[in-house]
Structures are given as structure tokens and as C-alpha cells.
């Protein structure tokens, strides 16, 4: 017994190191591999987010001109639609007086107070949380295209998993041919400005400059929101598919505003997805 205590005393530094290392590796792998996320140990907790918010308030002044320009452009396109007295539902336009028409999506404007874009796994933080009705697995769109999906929610803030995260996955549509593809961001090959679309059949006629848009199938986003423009097309002969590189519509290094998508029929869609 005495020998054991002596042994522990002799190697106490190493044992303490092993103990702490074990804790940190436990955190590392459990936060990655399980769906049980540590809400209170991520950047959406109140302390870290309020610090990020403080920093946002200090520095957002400098990018007001860009934000203004983005909003002006969006405003003009919205004005176009309103003046034509059409409402966008999906990819087809219907008249707003249509009685069958029911408002499906609601948007809540949020500020992106922190945007990571250069890491292996990137995250955004927005200044809306449970109090505003934000829940996990809601979509976030920017002024030009989609940004990401809500991952964690705290009282006043939410963490978003953006397109530029290897764990992000979404079914997307090719605008011209309506072919389905999978959106995948590969950290080793992509930077924050581009993303891959894979699993599109090789016979699909995709041209440079075509757009990929959301399908709306999972109820996260309205259909028809732009994702990116084709800048490179490669063929995967073995699998008979195309590997397409898109230039993201949104610039994640300077994104400042976004809109959380509230889908009124989300529960209904979820039931169907589970049955499948």
C-alpha cells in the first residue's frame, strides 16, 4: 500500500496531466460525436455571446456602408415584387388575392454578431434566441443567399452551423434542370467563398454561371433561395456524377445581417419525414 502511495507521489505530475487530458478529450469527442450538445459550453451561452455582442456594437459602425448597400439592393428587389402585386411562394408567383394562398414562412431579422470563416468547423452567432421563438433546426438566410441552420439556442442568442462547416448537409436544386444534388463543404479543398455540389447525374446539363437554389423539401428554407453560382465543373467517371464547385452568394467574412426562417408547417413536414 505504501509503495502504491509512493508511486502515485512520484508520478503525480504525470497522473494529473493524464487526468486533465482525459477530461479534455472526453469533451472533445463527446461534443463531436453525440447529438447531445453542450449548450452552456458553446459560444451561444450568455457570457460569451454578450462579449461578442459588445464587440459587435463597437465595430459594426465601420461596416454600416456595406450593410446599407446590401439592404438597398434587397429593398429594390422586394419593391419590384410588391409593385407587381405578386407574392413569392416557391418558385412560381401567385397573386396575393388568391384565397388558397396562405402565408407559410415568417422571417425575423437578426444581427450576426460573430462569424467564423477560416476554421475547420465554422459557426455564426446571431442575437436572437429562445425569447424570440428561435428553435434548433431553423434556417437562416442572408440578404443574398442562405447562411445556415440553427444548432444551439440560449435565451438571447443562437449558434448557427453555416454552409462552410463540414457537418452541414442540404439537398439542393439546379435552377435550370431541377436536378437534385448534395451540398458539401470540404475544409481541405474549399475556402469560405466556395462549396461543392455532389451526386448530380453526369448527363445533367450544367453550365458555368448557373445557379443552385434551395429545394424547400425539408421545410428549413423557402424554395428558390439562391446558394451559389457554378464556377467549376468536374466529372467523377467512377460514380457517373458531376462534382460542381459553387461560389457562395453570401460572403461569410463580412456577413452582418440575416433572417431566421419560421416555417408554420414545420411540424407537419417533420411528421412526414419521420414516417419515411
Amino acid at each position: 500500500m505504501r509503495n502504491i502511495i509512493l508511486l502515485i507521489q512520484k508520478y503525480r505530475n504525470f497522473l494529473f496531466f493524464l487526468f486533465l487530458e482525459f477530461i479534455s478529450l472526453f469533451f472533445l469527442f463527446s461534443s463531436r460525436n453525440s447529438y447531445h450538445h453542450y449548450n452552456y459550453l458553446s459560444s451561444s451561452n450568455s457570457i460569451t455571446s454578450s462579449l461578442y455582442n459588445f464587440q459587435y456594437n463597437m465595430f459594426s459602425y465601420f461596416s454600416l456602408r456595406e450593410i446599407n448597400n446590401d439592404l438597398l439592393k434587397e429593398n429594390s428587389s422586394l419593391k419590384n415584387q410588391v409593385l407587381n402585386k405578386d407574392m413569392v411562394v416557391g418558385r412560381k408567383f401567385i397573386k396575393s388575392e388568391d384565397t388558397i394562398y396562405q402565408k407559410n414562412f415568417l422571417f425575423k431579422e437578426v444581427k450576426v454578431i460573430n462569424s467564423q470563416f477560416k476554421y475547420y468547423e465554422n459557426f455564426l452567432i446571431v442575437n436572437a434566441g429562445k425569447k424570440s421563438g428561435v428553435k434548433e433546426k431553423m434556417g437562416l438566410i442572408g440578404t443574398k443567399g442562405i447562411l445556415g441552420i440553427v444548432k444551439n439556442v440560449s435565451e438571447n442568442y443562437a449558434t448557427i452551423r453555416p454552409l462552410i462547416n463540414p457537418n452541414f448537409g442540404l439537398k439542393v436544386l439546379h435552377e435550370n434542370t431541377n436536378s437534385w444534388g448534395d451540398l458539401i463543404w470540404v475544409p481541405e479543398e474549399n475556402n469560405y467563398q466556395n462549396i461543392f455540389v455532389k451526386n448530380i447525374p453526369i448527363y445533367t446539363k450544367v453550365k458555368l454561371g448557373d445557379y443552385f437554389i434551395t429545394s424547400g423539401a425539408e421545410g428549413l428554407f423557402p424554395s428558390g433561395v439562391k446558394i451559389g453560382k457554378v464556377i467549376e465543373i468536374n466529372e467523377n467517371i467512377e460514380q457517373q456524377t458531376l462534382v460542381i464547385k459553387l461560389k457562395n452568394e453570401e460572403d461569410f467574412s463580412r456577413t452582418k445581417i440575416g433572417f431566421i426562417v419560421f416555417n408554420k408547417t414545420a411540424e407537419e413536414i417533420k411528421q412526414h419525414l419521420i414516417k419515411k
Partner: protein
Amino acid sequence: MIFEFRNIAWFIGLIVAQIFFIDYLDFGIYSSYFSPIIICFFILKMKLDTTVINLLMYAFFLGFITDIFRNTLGLNTSVLLIITFLKPTFLYSISSKEDIEKDVELNMFTIGLVRYLLFFGISIFLYHLIFFLLEQFSFNNLPILFFKAFINTISALVFLVFLQYLFIFKK
């Protein structure tokens, strides 16, 4: 007491510099190659007579707080602990035990520029390399990882030289 206060200031200062300054630097499409981590300076600069247990505790909390901000729970912590544990090995591989006084903080003014570059260079390079390997969790693209670790080490060293001139340098 003054020593304690200075340590606390370095602890908080490094985290703030890391999270609110370095992480925000934008180099366009090359940004993914440029994400230096400087928090390990806190551990590396500590006096040699600091006990290992204390050092490990500092490393754990320093890494943990940084991880919470960067959404990389456990990643910085585990790498920082490894570097803390290997610190004496690195130091004595570049100099003999008598060369460096035990009650002096290690920085480029006390150990000299060459030793600073060697000791801090090796430690920070290894930090980045283990960090990227753990982050990716595979041995794919090893040359790119080495390149990234190298670039980030150099930029971290340069940034730390600035910090030391600002806050440590005395005529």
C-alpha cells in the same frame, strides 16, 4: 502580488487578443491558412520554478475558455496540456539546465532572440501541428497541414515579438 496581477492580466489579455483580434484578421481566400494561436505564450513564458501541477491547471482553464469562445470544446485544452507537459523537454533540448535562471520569466529579452525563436518556435509549431491533426482527425493532406502549421508558427512568433516589445520591453 504584483506578479500575480501581471499574470492575470496576461491570461485575460492573451484570450482577448486571440479571440477578438487575431481570429478576426481577414486575408481573403488565404484566410484558412492563417489562424495562428498565441494563447500558449502564457504557459511557455512562466517561470521555471512554477510547479507542474499549477502549470497544468493554468493550461486547462486557458484552453477551456478559449474553446468555449471558438466552439472547439476540448481541442485547445488537450493540445495546450500536451505542450505544457512537454515544455521542460523542449527547453532543455535547446539549452543546458544551468543556462536559464529558475525565477525568471521566459521571453525574448531574458533568454535571447535565438533561444526564443528555437524554444517558442518548436513549441508553437508542435501546438499547431497537433491542433490541426486533432481537428481534422485524419492523416490526409499532411503536407498542407505542415505548411499551415509552419505559416501559423511564423505569424504567431512575429505577433508575440510585437506583444513583448509592447508589454515587457524595459530599457
